[in-house]
């Protein structure tokens, strides 16, 4: 055997012995751009990253980052569909989405439950490991935020897929209540809870959140994008309003609305209205914005989810002009004066009126408003008006505060309870236009969905009044029932 042969064989043997050591490492790869489920709760930063991921998920893919608002807006009577495109809600607008409507019925459901499961997985991760890492107090902070977001998801599901609480006092079918983490294949058959049961869970989560989230954060951005105590309370007023539990609305709202003008929160983050109604749409982190979904050039809303893309036409902000304002809708309201600052949000182009609250051109990164302080004021006003025997003075004051910020020349002086309630509801259509209230405001009061253009009105008794259950849920969850 010559020298070359020896070298060859020696090299071969050395190579073989080396590779057998390396083999097991290479067969069990550890991705370098993701984090393993085994270590997802190992550090404080990672745990907080998990919390933020739940926010990011409630923001993304068409929940509170745009589509929740849009679907609610276009279920009302103020917007006209311009594009007949089901991808951008044509079927929702004409009250005819089907079990197979991917971009509305299926996506919203899937995304809401993805958020719910993320929260459930997080709660499980905290109890198994995370709490020990960050300590009980911080753990409770984070858990409270997760539960708040879970509540928001269940709330959004109820608005679209379930009969309103007012119909049978919550006795109608709700959605499956999932409170345990799902991380692999399994048997996931689960029947629907009742609407009341789902609301009860929402409130349980919110009550826990209220006492466990921080009172405030280090800066205005966090105060607008993360849940603090007043955020939770504000959302509770919306939940109770949807249930028609006026007294609870008042109890909650009073925690963050002063007795008299200027109305503001007394503790925690001092929420109040800005002097100029335009301010919250240019400076996204004022104390008026209780919760908004943040966007940035490197954190975009995603194609066909952006508010500005839907409501702005090409000529104004380079949007798609999916929805114009119906000429006979709220913009025809004679009492909404031309001098009202909020009229400034209505611009015309191509002979049509457009809502220009969201003005940033492509990439359409206006923050999506979720809760603004005027909503809480109007929630309170409505509850006060409903519970009073006559005309509630504080309700009128709240209503006027909202109106007079934009139109100092108008002072409402309703003479009957019914007139006051009607004025408050009308003010919601003006103040909260394009912020996702129209549909839910109609359904919680069992009002018909309005007729518009070629679309007929849908009475509250109609099957079309709420969305159908997604076909894939019906197919894969044998205990699920359709609406």
């Amino acid at each position, binding site marked *: *055997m*010559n020298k*070359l*042969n020896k070298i*060859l*064989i020696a090299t*071969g043997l050395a*190579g*073989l012995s080396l*590779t057998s050591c390396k*083999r097991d490492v*290479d*067969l*069990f*790869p550890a*991705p370098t*751009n*993701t*984090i*393993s*489920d085994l270590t997802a709760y190992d550090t404080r930063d990672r745990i907080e*990253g*998990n919390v*933020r*991921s739940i*926010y*990011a998920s409630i923001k993304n893919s068409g929940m509170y980052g745009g589509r929740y608002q849009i679907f609610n807006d276009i279920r009302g009577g103020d917007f006209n569909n311009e594009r007949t495109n089901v991808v951008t809600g044509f079927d929702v607008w004409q009250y005819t989405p089907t079990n*197979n409507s991917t971009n509305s019925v299926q996506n919203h*459901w*899937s995304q809401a*439950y993805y*958020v719910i*499961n*993320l929260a*459930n*997985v997080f709660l499980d991760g905290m109890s198994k490991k995370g709490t020990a890492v960050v300590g009980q107090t911080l753990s409770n902070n984070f858990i409270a935020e997760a539960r708040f977001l879970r509540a928001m998801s269940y709330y959004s599901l109820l608005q679209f897929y379930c009969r309103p609480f007012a119909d049978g006092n919550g006795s109608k079918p709700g959605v499956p209540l*999932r409170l345990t983490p*799902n*991380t*692999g*294949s399994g048997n*996931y058959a*689960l029947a629907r809870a009742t609407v009341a049961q789902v609301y009860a869970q929402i409130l349980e989560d919110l009550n826990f959140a209220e006492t466990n989230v921080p009172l405030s954060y280090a800066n205005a*951005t966090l105060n607008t994008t993360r849940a603090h105590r007043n955020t939770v309370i504000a959302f509770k007023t919306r939940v109770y309003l949807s249930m028609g539990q006026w007294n609870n609305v008042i109890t909650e709202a009073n925690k963050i609305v002063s007795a008299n003008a200027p109305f503001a929160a007394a503790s925690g983050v001092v929420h109040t209205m800005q002097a100029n109604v335009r301010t919250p749409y240019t400076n996204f982190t004022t104390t008026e914005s209780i919760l908004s979904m*943040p966007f*940035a*050039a*490197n*954190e975009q809303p995603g194609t066909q989810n952006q508010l500005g893309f839907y409501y702005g036409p*090409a000529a104004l902000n380079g949007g798609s002009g999916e929805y114009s304002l119906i000429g006979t809708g709220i913009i025809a309201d004679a009492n909404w004066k031309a001098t009202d600052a909020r009229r400034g949000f209505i611009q015309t182009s191509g002979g049509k009126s457009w809502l220009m609250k969201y003005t940033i*051109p*492509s*990439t359409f990164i206006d923050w999506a408003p979720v809760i603004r302080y005027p909503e809480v004021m109007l929630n309170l006003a409505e509850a006060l008006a409903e519970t009073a025997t006559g005309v509630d003075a504080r309700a009128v004051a709240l209503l006027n505060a909202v109106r007079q910020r934009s139109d100092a020349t108008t002072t409402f002086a309703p003479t009957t309870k019914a007139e006051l309630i009607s004025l408050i509801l009308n003010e919601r259509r003006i103040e909260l236009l394009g912020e996702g209230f129209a549909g839910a405001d109609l359904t919680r009061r069992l009002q018909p969905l309005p007729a518009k253009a070629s679309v007929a009105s849908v009475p509250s008794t109609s099957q079309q009044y709420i969305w159908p259950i*997604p076909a*894939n*849920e019906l*197919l*894969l969850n*044998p205990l*699920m029932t359709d609406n």
Partner: protein
Amino acid sequence: MYMRRLLTLMVSMLLFFASSVFAQNKTVTGKVTDEKGVPVAGASVQAGKVGTTTGADGTFTLSVPANTKQLRVTYVGFESTSVSIGTSPMSIVLASEDKSLSEVVVVGYGTQRKKDYTGNTASIKGSAVANRPVQSFDQALGGRAAGVQVNIPSGVLNAAPVIRVRGINSLSLSSVPLFVIDGVPTFTGDFSGTNAAANPLAAINPNDIESIDIAKDAAATAIYGSRAANGVVFVTTKKGSRGKAKVSYDGWIGWNQPFGLPKLLDAFQYTELKNEALRNANAFSATNQFRLTNGPDGQPINTDWYDVVYRTGMMHNNAVSVSGGNESTQYYMSVGYTEQEGILRRNDFKRLGILMNVDHKANKYISMGAKLQYTNSMNLASQSSGSLPGEAFNTTGLGRVPMITAPNVAPYNNDGTYNLAGNLIGVMGNLVGQVGFSNPVVGFDLNRSNSEINQMQSNLYIQAKPFEFLTLKSTYALDYVYVDNELYQHPLSNEGFSTNGFAQSWYNKTKRWVWTNTAQFSKSFKKHNVSALIGVEQQKTEFIGFGLSRQNVNDPAFTNIQGGWTTPNTAGLGISDNYLYSEFASANYNFDRKYFIAANIRRDGASQLGANSKFGTFYGISGGWEISEENFWKQSFFGKTFSSFKIRGSYGKVGNISGLGNYASLSQFTSGLYGGAGTVAFAQAGNNNLGWETSTKTDFGVNFGVLNNRITAELAYYKNNVNGLILNVPQPPSAGLPNAIATNIGSLYNEGFEYLISADVVRGKNFTWRASINGAYNHNEVTSLAPGITQILTATSGLESVNITRPGYSIGQLFVTRTAGVDPATGRRIFVNGAGRQVFFQHVAPAGQARFMFADGTTAPAVGSQDAVVYGNTIPRWTGGFDNTFRYKQFELNVLFTYQLGYNIYFGSNAGLRDQRFWNNSTDVLARWQKAGDVTEIPRLIFGDNISNGSSFPLDVNVFNGNFLKLRGMTFAYNLPAKYADKLKISTARFYVAGNNLAIFSKYPGPDPEVSSNGNTPGAPGVDRNTIANARSITVGLNIGF
């Protein structure tokens, strides 16, 4: 080993003494020629220990011991011969080698004599794919091998062909066979991230290919165990051979044209019919109508958008190779350059490649060799062709744009500016809101969607032969693919409008190394012939991608990411790896070349699989019986009829993970942003038990020849049971899982038979005709899916679900809603709903009527995709090819037909061609219903009607039989006679004219029944949705050998 050396030494000494004692020499001279009298240069002439090689003129002079009686003359490609030394100069004629003895089959980690081989492998010569107007050799395989279906999915250059070996063998993983190039598994698919396609197999210059062997059954493929379920394609590049340097030049030029485009309405017909549709919709008015516009010449604009989008593409190809060598070193070197223009404007392909194969024998024990291949290819496009998987509904897709854009507008305004209205093409004189999507000319002029690929495929081996019967070999191979993707969309163009310009560049690196160590044992003991192989192989593949995406340009002068833009976002980020560790063995034994038995086994461990199921063991066994060697047979009637007759069969189990994500089995959290801060989101639920799809293959066949093998045939029956199909099993959406979890569940099978019959039909002195016909019948059936999954709908480009996979049916059957013609009384479309009841539809209903009505006038529920039925198979039952080569003196004609029978195609484009929105229509629509009593298949035109003809949901009226017979290739060549060649100081010269896709015999109304909008997607075959046609090409070429 010392004994051996001692022995060698002693023998040498003895010989030395012998030669010195009896040294008395004589000189022998002579000339070696082939049967035609052409001198054979470089032939080895041996007399015992002494020897020489022949010179350029075939002559030799050799001094041999006086008592030497015999010369042994050998040369590659010829039968070795021993001749008695006669009077010098001797004249020695070498006979061409008997093909049947020298023919080898490439098997894993080596070759085997075809006659001894018991697996099922189809062999194709490199010349069959050389000098074709293709970008990659796999595009030229169609019709060449039984049971191997090759479809060219579109006329987009360098789109990977759809290749199926014995049917579709997977549902959600890849069904593309494993490609092994010179022993190294390589990449397939589309490596481009842009609208240009880039098949990595295009890195190989087809002219450099010696042979292609397609292994089909378990015996042939099992040595590639876990990757063998879809078959294995072995590609062997050319190597040098002993002899003086041979230089060869290949060049061709050619041109490409689209064919079979549907006829469209011209501007006048369009304007008239659209206005008719508006009237029928009660929407025609002075301010809402279509109108002609006069062009700069004062005549009405009448644009043929096909002319705008398609072109005659020019191509050329040049390759030079040099090969040669001596006893110890052989080399092959080549350089090739090709430039090809596609039928779509701005769709170009350029390749520059070099290859060097060197083999060196260092001494009696050690040999080594290397392959170096580097290729640069440019895959260029301007915008989406609408023809690659996922692109079918792109509004700028160039397949669709010419079909739907109004012919009464022009790409340019009369003043020469672009005709644009926002991101859309302008309406010109039409008084309607929209008459098209994009203006393609803007994209042609201003946009880019390019992919540049640099690929290096190289390897180095060292081989030791310590004993005659044992070969140890170690091969280290690299396959690196570097991809530069570059997108630019001008602010004026449809794509760049909304973002005020868009530029994105991203870089992908895929690096693979493969280290193979084998020991081969081969020995014959009397009539027992044994060979065995053991080996260990590791394969590691790493992927890295990164890039930058920019929107909102500061100044339109900036046209790349390096310019000034507003946003700096990431693009194409990715990092992952996979690893395969394998141990394998094979053994072959035959007795007297009559009884054959072979076995393969391979154990693979793959990093992609679940922690609990990393390893799998795969095997194949086969046997054969050459009956014609038996005495009883030889003496019987059969023996006189059949010149050879072999029965063979195989059985085994192989696997598939091709296409599985690198980290598919892991549970992972990914990181994004919320409010500018990092997130950690549960993004993938894994499966620790995720394992291979397994494929149990059975194969039986006979190979026989008659008339002294003038006619040979190979017949085979096969059945392939695939179990443990990996499906992404959906859970109820309310479970909130981030993904459908990959799970081994589900099964299917392919069963069929194949035949290959080759014959020397005419063997005259001047005229020969060799014909070869191959074909296969395949039956595909899905036997089970996951519990709770009764069916899988596979959408075309995420929008239109026309393919359904259900147990009891073949994969990807068409799922369409039925129609029953057009009501002659009213012109309404008649649908048949899920309950089988006829429903009459009119897009705009007069007062008192509904859009959907039953025959009795009552309102019917809307018909839609929920009324669809499983309508027909999309996988051809019969496929094959018919290859003929005629030679007359120096002329040669090769004609290749391919056919596919027994399947359906969903011609989705047809729905668009009859859509009653602003879209232009095919001339079929001229036969529309106009008045009561009209019997036609085109409903009354009502503007806005996107339902009657299939745009909203797929209809049976757009399903057609796909049967076709295609004249796929034809080459007419002239070989320059040797006497002229000699005068020109060249050895060979060949001139040819060749054509591709010259004729199609089919009733299919679309451009080409072969196209596939969904490319290689297993679950969605047979869809032709807005896909551009295939090209018809003519080339003129020249080969010269020096």
